[in-house]
Every structure is written in C-alpha cells, then in structure tokens.
C-alpha cells in the first residue's frame, strides 16, 4: 500500500473515532467555532472537536509542525479535506488567523514571532481581526492615516480603523499603520496589537441586513511594544498585498450555493413557485434567467478547476484571484437578485403569519451579498488590478 493510501486509511479511522456525531450535522450560525479568549460553545462538542483537531495540528493542516501545524504535504491535505467532506464534518475552527494572518507570518515574521503567535492560532486560543480600512481609506487603502509614532521603547498608535470583522469579539488585531508621513506606500508598517491594550475601543456597526459583523475600531494613545512589528519598518505594504490575495481567494469561494440550501436549488424553487409545463419551469422568461445563471455557475466552477490544475502543474496564477473575486462576487449578487425575483413579496417579508422562515431568511443574505463586491477590494479595484498587472495597460489617463 502506498504512503498516501495508508494516510487515507488512518485519517478515516481517526475521524470516525474522534469527530463527534453532532459535528457531522448542518451548523447553525450560533455554533460557528471561532475559539478565542472568550469562546462561546452552545454545543460543547464544538470545543471537543476543535481541541482534538488542534492537537494533531489539523486546524492548520499544511503549517509546519514546529509551529503547531499538521505538516501535511498538498496530497495529504487533499486527502484530509476529502475525508472530512465524506463525513460532512463541520469546520473545526474558523479563524482569520489561519486564513489570513498565519500565511503572512510564515512568510515575513521572525522566528521568535512565529513561535509566539502561530501555535495559539492553531489551538484556537487567540482570535484575530484585521485592521486595514479606515474611514478615509477604502479603495485607496495605501492612503491610510492611523499613525504609529516611535517613542523609543514602544510605538504610540492613534487613529481609526473600520470594517474590522468581529473586532468586538477578537483578542488581537493585525494592523496597517503609518510610520512615515512623507511617502505613501513606503511609509506603511504591519503591527500586531492586543485588543486588551488601553485605548483600543471597538464599536459594532449595524448593517443594512440588521446584523453587526463589522466594527469601527478607535485607537487612542495605544502603546504597542516594538517587537510587535512584523517585517521591516515601512515595508508593511508588501505584507498587506500578500494578505489581500488570501482574502480575495477566500471571498470568491464564499457563499457559493448558500442561500438555497434549505430551499432546494433555484430551479426547483422556480418550478414550485411558477409550476411545471412538460417538466420545465412554466414561466418562460424566468426559466431563461435561471438557466443563464446556472450556466454561469457551471462555467465559473470549471474556471476554478482549471486554475487549480494549472497551479498544481506549476503554472503561475498571480492575478487570477482578482478575476475570481470580480466574477464570483458579481455572480453571487445576481443569484440573490434572482432568488428575490423568484419569491416576490414573500422574500421581502421579514415577519408574518403563515410565512416560511427559510424564505424570510433570504432577504438578510441578499443584503449581505451586496458587500461581496465591496469588501476585499471593490469590483472596480479588481478590474484596475487586472488592467495593470495582467493586461499591462498604460496608466496616467483621466479616470
């Protein structure tokens, strides 16, 4: 038997033994496993599952074992993911530390920093949030003004971050700060800040969907030890860009197929609402709209698969993340518009006698989807990136 076959057998046996039964069922939102200093476990199995996976480093399967990771090679990781999917296992840990910060630390941090920050991320002990955007710096992220002054033995940080996901629940924040005001991109540094430090004040923002996953985070005379700087002083933009690539890949893959799970597919829904004619959706123009969308989804999935195969074969992918972010987020927005159109006023009802909760759950998701083409670099920013980096079009014209 090959090593990989042995690995698959052992993994399957271990998962059978260790993944609690309730962790193989669909996950309600309140049971999302975020970990952190003040975790919430409405279902105690969530904690058991996370700790068992973390003990093997499988919350971060491909990270090196010396930092608590699983040390798996890409083939082993693929097998692990397949075996997890086989038993419909829930994710053992949601973490911006794993998805975004960790890969950047592995590439840019000192050995001491890796030892200090990575293992608690793997174990789900520290929950991270991202301090990038500012009220005056959205698409023009490099124009950020939150400043970190060198006070000899520490940095003094003052400013305001916005769109910090779950900052009110996070333990630490990774921040872009201005350490040189005379230049733009070359005056930015990457700083790690403990949210418990005096002067850090996160305030939730209520969104159009009614929920508050994001905060604005005020930083007032926050003292940050100098060893919390990652990478060189004024070289933070390089780290920031790398991290954004991870974020774009994450957003473009997010929410695909969500929203209909409890309602059946869009095509089934259309048949239910408008009836069937010879097995076809009876409403001819809506049928065409649904069909167009289903074709878009199949074509986009093939594009993701192609890029995956090319990447595996060693072909560089670079700006593809921007294509996926652009197309994936626009497609997801169209999907929710079609669902709204399909369900009519029933999807616009938020409370009402005889109304189906699954249908009423669509409108918050529709509203949430509008952010897909704004967060992580707007659609317009992605198109700028493609024009510059892939198409090599000249710059300098009037916008």
């Amino acid at each position: 038997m090959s090593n990989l076959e042995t690995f698959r057998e052992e993994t399957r046996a271990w998962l059978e033994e260790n993944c609690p039964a309730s962790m193989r069922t669909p996950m309600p939102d309140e049971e999302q496993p975020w970990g952190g200093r003040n975790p919430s476990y409405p279902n105690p199995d969530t904690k058991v599952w996370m700790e068992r996976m973390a003990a093997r480093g499988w919350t971060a399967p491909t990270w090196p074992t010396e930092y608590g990771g699983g040390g798996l090679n890409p083939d082993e990781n693929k097998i692990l993911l397949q075996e997890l999917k086989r038993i419909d296992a829930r994710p053992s840990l949601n973490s911006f530390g794993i998805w975004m910060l960790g890969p950047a630390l592995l590439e840019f941090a000192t050995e001491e920093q890796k030892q200090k920050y990575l293992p608690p991320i793997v174990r789900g002990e520290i929950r991270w949030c991202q301090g990038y955007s500012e009220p005056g710096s959205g698409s023009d992220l490099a124009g950020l003004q939150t400043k970190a002054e060198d006070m000899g033995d520490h940095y003094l940080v003052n400013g305001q971050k916005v769109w910090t996901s779950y900052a009110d629940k996070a333990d630490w924040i990774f921040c872009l700060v201005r350490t040189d005001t005379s230049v733009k991109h070359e005056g930015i540094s990457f700083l790690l800040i403990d949210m418990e430090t005096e002067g850090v004040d996160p305030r939730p923002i209520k969104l159009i969907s009614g929920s508050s996953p994001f905060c604005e985070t005020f930083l007032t005379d926050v003292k940050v030890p100098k060893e919390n700087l990652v990478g060189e002083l004024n070289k933070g933009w390089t780290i920031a860009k790398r991290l954004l690539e991870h974020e774009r890949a994450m957003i473009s893959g997010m929410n695909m197929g969500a929203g209909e799970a409890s309602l059946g597919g869009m095509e089934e829904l259309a048949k239910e609402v408008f009836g069937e004619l010879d097995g076809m959706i009876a409403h001819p123009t809506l049928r065409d709209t649904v069909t167009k969308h289903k074709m878009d989804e199949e074509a986009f999935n093939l594009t993701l698969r192609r890029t995956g195969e090319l990447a595996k074969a060693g072909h560089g992918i670079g700006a593809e993340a921007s294509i996926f972010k652009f197309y994936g987020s626009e497609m997801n927005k169209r999907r929710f518009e079609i669902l709204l159109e399909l369900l009519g006023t029933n999807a616009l009802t938020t409370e009402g006698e005889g109304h189906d909760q699954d249908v009423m759950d669509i409108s918050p998701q529709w509203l949430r989807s509008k952010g897909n083409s704004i967060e992580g670099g707007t659609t317009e920013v992605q198109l700028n990136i493609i024009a510059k980096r892939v198409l090599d079009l000249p710059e300098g014209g009037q916008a």
Partner: protein
Amino acid sequence: MTTENMEQPKTDFILSEEQTMLRDTAKQFFSEQVPISNLRKLRDEESADGIDRDVWKQASELGLAGILIPEAYGGTDFGITGMGLVMEEAGRTLAATPLFSSSILSTLVLLEAASEDLKQAILPAIAAGEMIVAVALEESGHHNPAAISLSAEKKDGGLVLNGRKTFVLDGHIADKLIIVARSKGQKGDTNGLSLCLVDANSDGLKVSRSKMVDSRNSSEVTCENLTVSADMIIGTIDDGAAPLESALDQARILLSAEILGGVNEVFERTLEYLKERKQFGVPIGSFQALRHRASAIFSEIEICKAVVTFALSQSDKKSNQIARLASLTKARLGEASTLVSNEGLQMHGGIGMTDDVDVGLFMKRARVQLQLLGDPRFHRERYARLNGY
C-alpha cells in the same frame, strides 16, 4: 506531424506534449500559409471555389484534414482535443478551408453511423483532402434539427428525396453531400430522420452558391425526385437522429474552439490598439472607462477557455455529459464572441468601421458562427431541458 495516437492527458485542462506540438504546428501553418489576407484575396477576387485549393492540399499533407479519422482509414487520429487546438488557430486567421464542413461535420456523421464499406470508401479520401463532403441540414434561418421536413419516400429499399436545404457550408464545392431527410413522422419530431450520401452531380440535385456576410462558402440545395440507393444510407433508414445529434454535439464543441480563437485574436489586437492609440496626449488604454471593460472581457475569456478545454477533453473521454457541455459551450462562446467583437470594434473607434482593419471581418464571422449549429438562445433552452428544468 506524427501519425501516432495521441496520449490522452490525465487531467481535464492541461495539454499533453503531443497536443502542444500539434497546436504549435497549426499555429505556424495558419499564420504563415493562411493569414487573413488569404480570405481577403478570395473575397476580392471573387474566387469561384471560395477556398484556396493549394492551401487545403498543404493542410491535408500536414494531416489536418484527417485529425478525427482513425489511422485504419488513413487519418492522423489526434482526437477531439487535437482538432480543437487546430480550430482555435484556424479561428485566429479566419482561414477559409473545408476543415469544418468536411473534416469535422461530415466526418463525425460518417464515424457515428456509416457502414464499414462506406467508411472505407469515403474517410481515406477526406483525410487526404481529395474529397470534400458537405452536410445539408438546415431548412430555415435558425438551427433546428427537429424541424426537418425535406421528404424521403421509401422506394426499393432506398429513398427518394424532395425538398430544399439552406446554409449548406461548402455545398457548391463538395464532391458529395450528406442530406438529412425526414423519412418518418412529422416536422417537429426529434426522430424519423435518415442520413443520405449523394454525389454532387446526381440527377435531381441542384446546388447553388450563396454569398454570406463573412465571405465564407454557403449554398442552397434543392432535391427533386433525387434517388438514394440503400447502400448510400448512412446508418439505417429512420434512425439518423441519434447519430446526427452525437455528431452535432462534438461539432458544436469544435466550432466553439474556432470561436475562441477569433475571440482571443480580436482581444489581443484591441489591447495592442489601446496601448498605441493616443488621444488627449495619452494612450487611450489609460482611460478607466476602457480599462475596466478590457479587464471584464479578459475575465470572460478566461472562463471561455476553461469551458472549451473541458468540453474538448470530456469529448475525448466519451463522457455522458457531452450534450449538456456542448450547449453550455456553444451558448457561452456565442455570447462572448458577440461581446468581444462589438467591444473590439467600438474600442478601435472610427478606424474599426473601415474595411482595411480586420476587426470588422472578425465581427461578421462571429455572427455566422453564432447561428451555426444553434445560437445562445437555442442552447440555453436545450441546456435547461437536458438538466430537467
């Protein structure tokens, strides 16, 4: 080019070494021997054949005419993906050859249903480029195989044909025609079709050339008591619809590869123009209104590449999803070529309206390709039906 069988790639999207070599060979052949000036010359000199016989001879000597044909019948047997790569390159130079009519559409119909005797008699001649065979399928301005009504009356084990066909590609230069006729049932029935192989000079057959906007060959065909003997029926009488549909699906995918070549060419030329052309003292490609549209087109083309490549590789693997994938692919490429040819012309500005610049030729070709074997509307409807909604 070798005549060895091409190794099937292990992946769905990555070319084998042999396939890469074939593509390079085709690229060199079309760019050097059949550049766009070749089509212009045929058009401007009002060529009677509408193709360049010398070019077709060279292409056949390279093995391009027999890519889909097994070695046993004198072909090079490079498979659907191999032919797709050749079509993509042919699409880049708007090459006017019988590659699609004879070496793809007719060849696929023969491979799907013809008797061993017929295959032995016809396929080697197609592979050698010595015989051109055209398919007479359409009867109206829209692709619709079920709507065929050209009648086939049964007589002495054979058929007698009466009726008209239109949009017959390369019909007027064909040595033989495959006429799709209704021998059973009514117009609108999917089944009840027969595939009839006839000589171009048969009694009762009239072929007259039409002129198309893309300067490529098309013709009208009339059958008046045209007798087809039993041994000239491809497959069995009344059972032609299934093999025809299978051949059409593979042809739709290969046609999409040709469309992809044209789309790529127009986009690359347009990008060059955006970098060169200056207005207000700067290259127009620095204006965001154009940059964003160019980036969106690029994303669309990446999606098209994935769809076409996958459909080609699945055809070679004889996947049972070919009908769905053919419709997905033909619809997507039809929509993309409309977008890219329109945007390409607009971004070229006034000069794009002139006959001297090639972008207009690509746009005209794109619209003929869009209608050929089904427009996006036809294929969206078919995709939905095949998916059960």
